[in-house]
């Protein structure tokens, strides 16, 4: 019989010109309506709120998938968090794409701030480069839905001392020249789009405005095939998952987790519920109570023939 499934640790020989990407993802509380749980004091109950992949990480995964569709290669999902975050990596594999998953997980990593997280992730990237394969691109999403910091990507990149391009909304790679060309969004008093060129390996932080493009029919076909494959893999995610703890990563406990974090959260306060400023008239649409609302709206109605 043809032997079992591929193993996450297998080190494929990379054909020339193909791109190896790592996508950094993070688990966050599910903020969709109805999923968030609060205690009596109005504090978020993280334990009761389901964890999902940071919605903005989807754009980083899309950029990695686009790179694989166009140039071939390999996409690895990487995350730091408790063992349960394997589900976040599984979700990334299922909803967008990953060839395999790496979870950096250790009790010592608990309560890491962005700086300690960045140190840990960069150690994961370095170990990956030493033991698995050289990496051409690291992708990260912009901001997470819980911390909203937007700092982890740039700080991880600082530790690698790679070039970085942030707020990327479109991406082209030239594998022969070993360069990338990206459009990045610069928001400020005026909004601008910059075109930038950078050498590989490079760190890419995608903007939520990022859109993958598949102009060739062959690319669209490859995209479809890769999507089908990754969904199959995700169904047996454990077979593609590698876990590394702080000894695997050779990290000094003083530089990770709470000990390695310059910042602490001194207090978390529910955003106070302001006293009612307006006395809302309650209207039951099932009853015939809409008249006062319509009275407010009808003076602004479009003229006949508009």
């Amino acid at each position: 019989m043809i032997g079992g499934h591929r193993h996450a640790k297998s080190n494929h020989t990379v054909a020339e010109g193909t791109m190896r990407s790592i996508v950094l993802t993070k688990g966050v509380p599910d903020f969709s309506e109805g999923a968030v749980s609060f205690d009596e004091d109005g504090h978020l109950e993280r334990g009761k709120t389901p964890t999902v992949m940071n919605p903005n990480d989807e754009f980083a995964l899309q950029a990695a998938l686009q790179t694989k569709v166009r140039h071939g290669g390999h996409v690895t999902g990487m995350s730091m968090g408790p063992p349960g975050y394997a589900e976040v990596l599984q979700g990334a594999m299922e909803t967008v794409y990953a060839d395999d998953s790496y979870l950096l997980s250790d009790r010592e990593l608990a309560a890491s701030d962005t700086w300690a997280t960045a140190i840990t992730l960069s150690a994961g990237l370095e170990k990956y480069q030493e033991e698995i394969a050289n990496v051409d691109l690291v992708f990260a999403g912009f901001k997470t839905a819980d911390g909203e910091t937007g700092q982890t990507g740039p700080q991880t990149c600082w530790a690698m001392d790679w070039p970085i391009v942030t707020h990327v909304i479109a991406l082209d790679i030239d594998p022969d020249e070993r360069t990338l060309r990206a459009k990045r969004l610069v928001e400020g008093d005026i909004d601008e789009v910059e075109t930038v060129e950078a050498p590989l390996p490079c760190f890419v932080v995608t903007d939520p405005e990022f859109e993958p493009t598949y102009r060739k029919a062959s690319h669209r076909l490859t995209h479809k095939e890769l999507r089908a494959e990754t969904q199959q893999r995700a169904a047996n995610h454990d077979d593609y998952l590698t876990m590394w703890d702080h000894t695997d990563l050779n990290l000094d406990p003083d530089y990770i987790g709470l000990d390695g974090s310059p910042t602490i959260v001194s207090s978390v306060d529910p955003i106070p519920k302001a006293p009612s400023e307006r006395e809302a008239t309650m209207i039951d649409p099932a009853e015939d109570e809409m008249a006062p609302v319509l009275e407010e709206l009808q003076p602004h109605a479009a003229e006949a023939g508009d």
Partner: protein
Amino acid sequence: MGDDCEGLAEECIAYGADVAVYHDDERLERFLHKPYTEIAAHMARGKGTVESTDWRDYDEPRYILFPATNNGRDLSAKVQAELDSGLASDCSDLFIEAEEVSNPVKTGEPGVKKTFEKVLHMKRPDFSGFEYSTILCLDNPGREFHPQGCSVIPGSFEPIERNPDRDGLVVEHDMDLEDDWFRVEITDHDRLEAGIDLTGHDVIVCLGRGIADDPTEGMELGLELVDAFDDAALGITRGIVTSSYQFEGHVESYSNEERQIGETGQVVAPDVYIAAGVSGAVQHKVGMDESDTIVAINTDPDARIRDFSDYFIEGDLFEVLPRLTEAVESGGLGLEPEAVADGGDE
């Protein structure tokens, strides 16, 4: 940092700075991560101003603030990493006071309390607008974390009134910039078309996460109501911008940040504001609570938005929006006089 930025340094004095340090280089005309980080960190270490060190009687800054813009946030993360310190991003309030801390990592011993003097308290909205966190950046017993840093949401503080006669010291910073720092090259830049302006309309229809059951249909229903008015526009909450809803192509363009209303979006004050499926986070409130009349449509009678609404229609927006559209269209044509026509008459 920039190309020909001495004038900006002088502006900083006029706006309240005592000392303004600047670095001019034609290669710095636009923001680049590596050289900007290297220069800012060099300045923070008190280097590069050999000839005029008498303006400071301390060596390194205790606090460092950045603007929470796209580039400012990136710079804050990189500079604080370079300086081996921490930061909080997107702060909306700051104050400095002593803080008694019992966290053993910071005090060095469990059960011992230690007072840190002059701590920058960095307050930031967290958890997608449900909570405020106060972040502190504190030294460990064996490792200093200075400067305490953060990025600040633009507009969070009132600027000091400009005084062009104010005295201050402008210092030029000196440092060799390595060619390798310019490995990322900006080859082109275009100004974007001015985005969508939601201000100045008579009516705003704003959609929130209540459209989750069918985001595309929700968007269509909102747009149909907009079209029924003479001068209306569609807005959305931050919850929609950050959602991963799959909108169909014809309405997708309405789901991005340029239509966001709230603290990090646009501030509007129309005659009538219709909030459909909007829960009413405090960040949303600041973007709309100057509206004349606020009509909320929500299935949850305890939704926060009730406290700042004039009318609260307790119902499903998928049913209520089409009814409003129909009523406005027919009312506008004058086909349905209804009882309300008498309401405003004496």
